[in-house]
């Protein structure tokens, strides 16, 4: 009798127990089994080689850890998130700032994750992680050495870290101005735009010392060496005391003697990204959803394209065939788009890529 009563009254406990199992079975187990993940990844990795095409650097949303790399092959097929897909779903990081290709090795600079992921550029397999960098921005190389610009912080001076490209060791760091940004090498000298200032630092690559600091425009950013070997610095412009736009963006030209020989006031603030056409005679930069072109030697710039259906341009590059690639961040509300224009500004294609496309690396056939 007692037995029967107990059994009947235990019913709710059984219901509870089985319902617990039901809840569990309905849950997709998010726990990672690295071995299985790697095995699955190997079998499913049909992405093939990335030896010819276009890498798109997708910055990701700030603090969301969803930066990524996309790849557009020569057939126009887009493969998104190729870093994670080829590394067992390892997230690439927070604010993927840029990627630098040295032979077949790619260095992916992840700004807010304070790291550089070194990958095999053909297969995107992770080779090494460089973690002793602080807010890295861009990278260039000369010989066996890489040069990395780092913001360090918003209150400390920026710096250049010198990387041994074979061992991935940071050999030395040299302080420059605040907000060390873009890098260009010319005549055994490294040029560093100090984005939080109005200056450019010049470092001798032999002595690894800062040999000169030049005042340019407000918030210097991207730099390009044109067909005359002159260096062009795009200065974004600043803000007035009341935080309204100063509309004082400019293009500054530095000759081979490092003298400022031309300054073109743009009459607006611009984003600090710039690209040049194949023969380095025309510069492209943008503001909002309008791209401007500047022919070397001209007095002013022209409107190259205006895309009223875009949300916000966020990156620009020119392919070896001369097509202009522009990334649209879509306000980081959704995945980004890449618009392709021919050299006359005619729209050609659009691709959906990762979140916040901010730059391109082109791999010619």
């Amino acid at each position, binding site marked *: 009798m007692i037995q029967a009563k*107990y059994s009947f*009254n235990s019913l*709710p406990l059984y219901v*509870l127990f089985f*319902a*617990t199992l039901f*809840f*569990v079975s*309905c*849950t*997709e187990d*998010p*726990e*990672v089994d*690295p*071995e299985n*993940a790697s095995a699955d990844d190997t079998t499913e990795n049909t992405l093939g080689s990335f030896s010819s095409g276009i890498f798109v650097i997708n910055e990701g949303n700030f*603090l*969301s*850890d*969803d930066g990524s790399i996309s790849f557009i092959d020569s057939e126009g097929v887009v493969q*998104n998130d190729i870093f994670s897909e080829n590394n*067992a*779903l*390892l*997230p*690439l*990081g*927070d604010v993927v700032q840029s990627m630098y290709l040295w032979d077949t090795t790619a260095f992916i600079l*992840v700004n*807010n*994750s*304070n*790291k550089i992921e070194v990958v095999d550029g053909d297969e995107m397999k992770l080779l090494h992680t460089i*973690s002793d960098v602080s807010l890295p921005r861009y990278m260039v190389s000369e010989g066996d050495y890489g040069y990395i610009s780092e913001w360090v912080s918003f*209150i400390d001076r920026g710096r250049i870290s010198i990387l041994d490209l074979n061992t991935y060791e940071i050999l030395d760091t040299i302080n420059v101005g605040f907000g060390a940004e873009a890098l260009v090498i010319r005549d055994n000298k490294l040029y560093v735009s100090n984005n939080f200032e109005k200056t450019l630092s010049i470092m001798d690559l032999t002595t690894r010392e800062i040999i000169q600091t030049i005042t340019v425009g407000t918030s210097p950013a991207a730099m390009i060496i044109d067909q005359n070997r002159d260096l062009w610095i795009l200065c*974004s412009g600043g803000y007035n005391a*009341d*935080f309204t*736009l100063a*509309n004082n963006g400019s293009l500054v030209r530095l000759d081979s003697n490092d003298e400022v020989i031309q300054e073109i006031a743009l009459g*607006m*603030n*611009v*984003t*600090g990204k710039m690209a040049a056409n194949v023969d380095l005679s025309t510069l492209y930069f943008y*503001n*909002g959803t309008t791209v401007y072109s500047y022919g070397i030697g001209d007095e002013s710039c022209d409107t190259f394209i205006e895309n009223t259906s875009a*949300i*916000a341009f*966020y990156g620009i590059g020119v392919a070896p065939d001369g097509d202009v690639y522009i990334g649209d*961040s*879509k*306000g*980081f*509300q*959704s*995945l980004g*788009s890449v618009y392709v224009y021919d050299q006359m500004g005619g729209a050609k294609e659009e691709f959906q890529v990762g*979140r916040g496309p901010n730059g391109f690396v082109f791999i010619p056939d």
Partner: protein
Amino acid sequence: MCPFFLKAQSDTVLMRPIEIMGFGLVPYATGDVVRVIHTVDPLKTLDAALFSQAGIYMKNYGHQQLSTISFRGTSAVHTNVLWHGIPVNAPTLGSTDFSQWHAWLIDDVAIQPGNQGALYGSGSIGGTVFIDHFNKIRTNTAAIGLGLGSFGYNFQGGSAEYKKDQLQGTTHIYREAINNDFTYPLKGTDLIQTQQNAAALSYGFRQELQHFWNNQRLSVDLLLFYQHRESQPVISQNYAQDFIKTHNIKSVLEHFIDVNKGSISTTLGWINDQMIYNQNPAIRSQQITLTQRYEYDIGHHFHLNSGFLISLLAAKGSNLENINPQKQLDFFMIATYRINDRWSSTLGLRESFMIDAGSKLLPSLGAERKWIFPKGSLVSHAKIAKGFRYPTLNDRFWLPGGNPSLKPEQSASTEIGFKVRYRKLNTQVNVYQTWAQDWILWLPQSGNIWRPENIQKVAISGIEYVLGYQYSLNQTELESQVVLNFQRSINKSAYPSQAAYGNQLPYVPYFTAIWSNKWPIKKLSIALDQSYTSRRYTTLDQLDTYAVDPYFLLDVAADYPLILSKVTTQISLKANNIFNSYYENIQNRAMPGINFQLQIIIKL
């Protein structure tokens, strides 16, 4: 005391079926549901209580980190939070960090889901959270709380209630710290990573005093919070050094008087918040609010609740310079008509003005019908209401980019619900729909500036289901409660692209479920809490590749009281996430696996 000031019992036990009742300053309005949140675990913060008892999705930016609410498919700025009836969402951000509200300092919490613009003003779109009121009767008691747990968790708290003659009050103080150095498997690797830079330290103090005389009451409550939290980084960045320090002072003074057939309460609140992120200059905000509420019975059928609210909002920081204090003035009236014991209806009306930010007229209409049966009852209710939200100070004045010409966000809602009681079973179901427009999004502009605009339209629909039941088992009672929330929060604007139209908003789960159980075995009490949170997309693309995986959690707790003379010592042992699941509440921010906590509460 006015009959509409029914209050929640302070000694409510765990798993008591959710009740619909008036709560402190919550005016009873037909067509609405009010749920009391039992802060049964005095060593938890409010975000944990809201999730574990109501299934409300809380966005936790890591373990014991910033925690904001997503109520009925809305974002954090669409839930109004009232402390003693004073709105306490930060004037700068427009939202509340619920992890700052520690249960040790709180007496009572209730929620009122849905659009309550006419009743509570700006921000009551997804729902309203009520924290504390002055309608509690104090006793002469004291308590000491101690906690120890995984990842260096430790808690020390003390509290005392006192009452003598025409005076009563309560004092609470606590310190809580955690190293948060838990380990987790790093996705894509075979590494077990130890969480860095996630330690948190908080102190809190509360002092409430009340004086009664004749038919009047004068009350004051003061809350002081201090938090120093390292900012838990994403999993790919395990060596950050960011931190956030917050100081909060909240104070309120209230005068209450019973008058013939009614009451008048006058409340003055002063709130001062300060936040420091890393070495950056502090962002400070201040709010002064005066509100008066007049409640009056007209005959046996009419009840009138009317009043006004005046708020001054100010903020100062390196990006918030030279802002004139923002002035807000609201008038409101809520009229309840009880046709008979079964039928009642409520008409609400609020006119709200904000200098330079427009004005809104907000009506609401609710109705309720009761059926009483020998062993139970059925109540059905329905409501239609408009809601709104003023832009925040950051939205309007942040330099650069703030947009002073923003309009208030607008919404309209309707809902219908049923509540059934039958013996020891208590169930509710609510179905709702909200249409919202002019929601504010920050958009990139030319010159690297982001600027907020009234651009987004959203359609929200959902079902809430609550079931509470009790089983008798070997002379004990198994108590159980199920809460299910289904919600669709759909983007109805073509921003940022046509493809985003019709997709679920980021970080709104389609489904959350809670199943809580309590089983007393003699003096021992075993609690089993399960929860499920479905997939959440992180962008408007509604792609599984940009989503946070669903997760299931099972927590177990055992409570045992030791009674020695007049001293009761409650010993609790808790095991959380006992399946040791790796899960994320926000994308790529690790949450801890299995963890344990020992609590000792000594009541004198």
